[in-house]
């Protein structure tokens, strides 16, 4: 399940834990009820897939940047490789086979110069943030915290590249 689909399913479940609506007394003040938590392995696989895409994408972006921006792109590229390795180790420990990188990725738009390379880097970070949002939906508190911290890192990188903050990093628009 992708991070986005995990998020959509979470929001579409308005039923309560016991199958009733949300108006069963004061507990009903919380609209979100109790959707099924996401499974751990698919959530981590989604994050890993996004990290693979980021590693590829930064390779494209970095080649079109110069100076400090290229240095930054290289640092971010390396950080995504490290995150990829971490996720692969986590999945292997769980007995799962980590999803492999694709040989190539379709870029979200034409990337032909520094400006579009910066936009690509921001888009990559937004994708990674959305993928880690899926990890936040699992039941394990430690994994939730892991996903949330990763979202903060990628959201900050996105702001570095785009120059603008957004109200809900990772959430579908």
């Amino acid at each position, binding site marked *: 399940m992708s991070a986005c689909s995990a*998020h959509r399913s*979470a*929001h579409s*479940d308005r039923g309560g834990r016991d199958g009733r609506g*949300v*108006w069963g*007394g*004061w*507990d*009903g*003040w*919380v*609209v*979100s*009820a*109790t*959707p*099924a*938590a*996401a499974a751990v392995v698919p959530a981590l696989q989604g994050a890993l897939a996004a990290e693979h895409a980021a590693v590829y994408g930064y390779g494209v972006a970095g080649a079109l940047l110069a100076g400090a921006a290229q240095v930054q792109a290289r640092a971010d590229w390396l950080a995504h490789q490290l995150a990829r390795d971490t996720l692969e180790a986590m999945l292997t420990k769980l007995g799962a086979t980590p999803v492999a990188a694709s040989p190539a990725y379709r870029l979200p738009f034409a990337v032909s110069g520094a400006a579009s390379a910066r936009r690509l880097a921001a888009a990559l970070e937004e994708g990674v*943030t959305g993928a880690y*949002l899926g990890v*936040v*939906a*699992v*039941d394990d*508190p430690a994994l*939730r*915290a892991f*996903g*949330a*911290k990763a*979202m*903060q890192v*990628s*959201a*900050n990188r996105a*702001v570095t590249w785009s120059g*603008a*903050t*957004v*109200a*809900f*990093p*990772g*959430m579908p628009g």
Partner: protein
Amino acid sequence: MLSAPPAVSQQTQVLLHAVTAEQNLIVIYAEVMSEYSGLAATLAPLRAEHEAHLAQLRARVVEPPGKQVHETVTARPPITGTKSAALAQLRAAERAAVTAQMDHLAAAPASLAQLYASIAACESTHVSVLGAQIGTQ
């Protein structure tokens, strides 16, 4: 005779706390922007994002008949005496807000945990933006 309503659940208390925390942050932004109008262009987008957070958090709260979510600001700290200090005050408030959202994650239902995590990510970017702004003062 009707009995008293049951106690508010822990989950609801956390959500209402998050609502109040956003209200408190918005008030600090408003007061800093009022005191230092030169910062308005930088701070207005950040405040607008907190208003969006507040709206989303409030949307998760259903008001049963006869009950309303309190519109209570519980902290109105005095704004410190220089632009840089005021920005540092805002930055500290944002950092504390990130910590609070992280503390809410473990016990929340999945979709609410995602909302808290997204808000925490946004607030962490505010910490960075405010830190950079302090450097320019």
